[in-house]
């Protein structure tokens, strides 16, 4: 491996800007770090170059740990967004800088310089000053300069940011060509997905300091695992659906979903479906569709963009409430659709026209967190909860919605049931009888319950624990999903009984390692692990009290066990929020 990052964390004033990033870049690979500004990608690049120290984790180049080696000895080439050429030196002097530092003989320097200038197509510019060159030429010089000392890896920090579109494309081609010719491992940082697709062998998408997903461009585009990647890599319609035994169901319309996974022994639940605009088919009537019908609608707006036609289609009643991008619950959903010239000719459309809508391909996100349902015994309580700042922030980051639900029977233990199953993440306010409410919600079909104290800040640290091994998978899935949207550190707390004997201890450590590797392998979640001894509830309570602004994700598979251990945890007034993940064992037990 050419570049290996192992749980790299960098904090500024306590807040992590690069959060537990692990990554391997292969020899000769062109890797693109893609993310919005402030996602930590540039910081990560600077950490690889040695221009920023890391607070945690290791960085290795070609198998050699360079975490504590200064930038000047790392032997990387770095190209800056604003070129950073030495203005008082000529092109030749700029390029030879690294060679001069290494006391190379003048003749060799000259030869190397000529070679590099040929490589970046700037022959004969040797004696110019940077100010006499155009922006594109300057960046070429910067690339040549970064390559002069034959670095092991080439790092490019938004190298095209300051250039106009045409020169950008030209330079992009040059860089790709140079990279292929030298077969040099390259990491490029950009916020432009088109650029990433054009250049990358592999893309890593970063947000909020976390590396969310890595993969080949077309894989990431077709099967993203997260909402963020789905929407950041091109346009996407995010739709709420239910996964049933028959397939995906949008509102009333069941869709025969060949492309999606089976229910896999789980209960019927809410899922998030990604539908790319170009995967939507429009037809005059339902029977003219060659694909799965999901509903009907009217054309809202059409924009001509050359090769493609872009339009917004308002879904008719059938699809109401299933769309995530709008904040209002009962607003009619809008779908983005793009059509090719061919399709346009085949079925010309005008605004206001009614159409039948079909989908060619649906991708269901593996995330267990789909939407939030603020539950309270009365309307005011539910509304108050729905406008909780943290919840609102979380929902907007996840591009999902919050619905309110009034359940007068909430928390009553007299066996009164909810009239319809609770979907999405149930949210309740922290209060003395929260444990009973959680239990009631879990019994009524909720798979996750979020308990929110009135005043909390977004967590700096998220603790993860499950009371029973059976709850491990869903807990990790929820944690991974949540942590992609919260800039916090993840810590798995393993708890052994106080009186654990020596033979049990290695077992505990192994549990930790298993948990970590499963989180990494299955969910792409990097987390720390801590091993504690004592009673689970007390230990967790102690951990939560140790620092402010924490969150606990607790996996449960047995309600009796939950009641026994966590009633006190929930009734105690803490400043931490709690996410309970429920995986009933009885069904597992029966299979």
């Amino acid at each position, binding site marked *: 491996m050419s570049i290996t990052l192992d749980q790299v964390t960098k904090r500024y004033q306590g807040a992590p800007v690069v959060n537990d990033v692990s990554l391997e870049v292969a020899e000769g690979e062109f890797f693109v770090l893609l993310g919005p500004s402030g996602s930590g990608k540039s910081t990560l690049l*600077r950490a690889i*170059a*040695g*221009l920023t120290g890391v607070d945690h984790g290791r960085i290795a180049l070609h198998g050699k740990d360079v975490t504590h080696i*200064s*930038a*000047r*000895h*790392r*032997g*990387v*080439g*770095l190209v*800056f967004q*604003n070129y*950073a*050429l*030495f*203005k*008082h030196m000529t092109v030749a002097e700029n390029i030879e*800088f*690294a060679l001069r*530092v*290494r006391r190379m003989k003048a003749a060799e320097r000259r030869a190397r310089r000529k070679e590099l200038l040929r490589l970046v197509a700037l022959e004969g510019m040797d004696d110019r*000053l940077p*100010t*006499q*060159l*155009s922006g594109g030429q300057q960046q070429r010089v*910067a690339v040549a*300069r*970064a390559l*002069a*000392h034959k670095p092991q890896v080439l790092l490019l920090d938004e190298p095209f940011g300051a250039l106009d579109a045409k020169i950008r494309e030209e330079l992009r081609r040059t860089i790709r060509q140079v990279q292929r010719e030298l077969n040099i491992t390259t990491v490029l940082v950009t916020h432009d997905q088109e650029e990433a697709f054009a250049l990358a062998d592999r893309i890593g998408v970063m947000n909020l300091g976390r590396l969310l997903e890595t993969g080949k461009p077309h894989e990431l585009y077709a099967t993203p695992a997260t909402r963020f990647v789905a929407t950041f890599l091109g346009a996407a319609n995010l739709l709420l659906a239910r996964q049933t035994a028959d397939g995906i169901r949008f509102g009333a319309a069941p869709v025969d979903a060949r492309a999606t996974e089976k229910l896999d022994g789980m209960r019927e639940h809410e899922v998030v479906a990604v539908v790319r605009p170009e995967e939507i088919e429009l037809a005059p009537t339902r029977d003219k569709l060659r694909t799965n019908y999901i509903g009907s609608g009217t054309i809202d707006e059409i924009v001509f963009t050359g090769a493609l036609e872009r339009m917004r289609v308002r879904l008719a009643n059938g699809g109401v409430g299933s769309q995530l991008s709008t904040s209002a619950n009962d607003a009619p959903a809008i779908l983005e659709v793009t059509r090719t010239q061919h399709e346009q000719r085949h079925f010309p459309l005008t605004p206001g026209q009614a159409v039948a809508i079909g989908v060619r391909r649906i991708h269901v996100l593996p995330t267990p967190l789909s939407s939030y349902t603020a539950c309270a015994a009365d309307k005011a309580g539910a509304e108050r909860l729905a406008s909780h700042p943290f919840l609102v922030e979380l929902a907007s980051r996840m591009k999902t919605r919050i619905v309110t639900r009034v359940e007068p029977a909430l928390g009553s233990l007299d066996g009164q049931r909810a009239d319809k199953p609770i979907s999405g993440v149930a949210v309740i306010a922290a209060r003395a009888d929260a444990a009973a409410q959680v239990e009631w919600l879990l019994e009524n079909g909720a798979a996750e319950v979020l308990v929110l104290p009135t005043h909390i800040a977004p967590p700096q640290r998220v603790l993860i624990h499950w009371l029973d091994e059976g709850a491990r998978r869903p807990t990790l899935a929820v944690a991974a999903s949540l942590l992609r949207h919260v800039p916090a550190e993840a810590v798995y707390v393993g708890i052994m009984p106080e009186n654990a004997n020596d033979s049990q201890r290695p077992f505990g450590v192994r549990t930790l390692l298993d948990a970590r590797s499963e989180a990494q392998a299955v969910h792409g979640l990097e987390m720390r692990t801590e091993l504690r001894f004592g009673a689970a509830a007390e230990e967790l309570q102690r951990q939560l009290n140790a620092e402010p602004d924490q969150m606990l994700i607790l996996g449960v598979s047995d309600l009796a066990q939950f009641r026994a251990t966590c009633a006190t945890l929930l009734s105690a007034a803490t400043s931490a929020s709690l996410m309970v993940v429920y995986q009933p064992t009885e069904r597992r037990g029966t299979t």
Partner: protein
Amino acid sequence: MNGGFRQPSILPGFGLTLGFTTFFLSAIVLLPLAALVVKATSMGWRDFIEVLTDPRAVASYRLSFGAALLAALINSVFGFVIAWTLVRYDFPGRKLIDALIDMPFALPTAVSGIALTAVFAENGWIGQYLAQLGIQVAYTWIGVVVALTLIGLPFVVRSVQPALLEVQHDLEDAAETLGAGRFYIFRRIILPTILPALLTGFTLAFARAVGEYGSVIFIAGNLPLKTEITPLLIVIKLEQFEYAAAAALGFIMLIMSFAMLLSINLLQAWGRRRLTASGR
């Protein structure tokens, strides 16, 4: 007035501001200096030369210009170090020190002279230790250098400080990833970048020091041929009512300083043109 004389620009106010500038400049600076020149030239060529080549005058040029040059050099080094420290490091009291740098401007020169003499005399706080080393500062040419260094210090620090603040960190980062050591970065990247500012500071410190009178006479010793500065010689001429001779000495100092300032300004204008030349 602005035909081929200036390059066209859409900004207004050129005539007004340049007019006011030249008027004010003429009234406050050029007219009085013209009086000086006329006075100096009123004495006849032979006398003029005689006054300027008097061995005592020549000795005083050597001291005035030599000490001013030395002081400006010392300031260039230490002024840079101070500016660097103020810009690149954070330490308790930094802001206060930053504010105190301008002190030599506000302190009447006589006060600085008296205070410096008190500090550097053989029984002064610092002078007593230097005396043990056999170094006498007050009443020697070293004292002159010390006084002129104090006078010129703010010029260098205040010229270099903004330049250092502006040095792009990217440049240093680039140099570091290319394998340059810290001293190499300093020598090849930082120094060339701030050199114009340092040069300006040096020139101003030098120009100011050459003419300094108030603080120097207290610490210099004022022995003819040894520790007598040119401005003191001018005062002596005045005491003898030889206005023309005083003006002549003032004039020659002015010419030398002007030549120096002009050459530095031209050098910088040239440098700026070179670095911001076409190509956009």
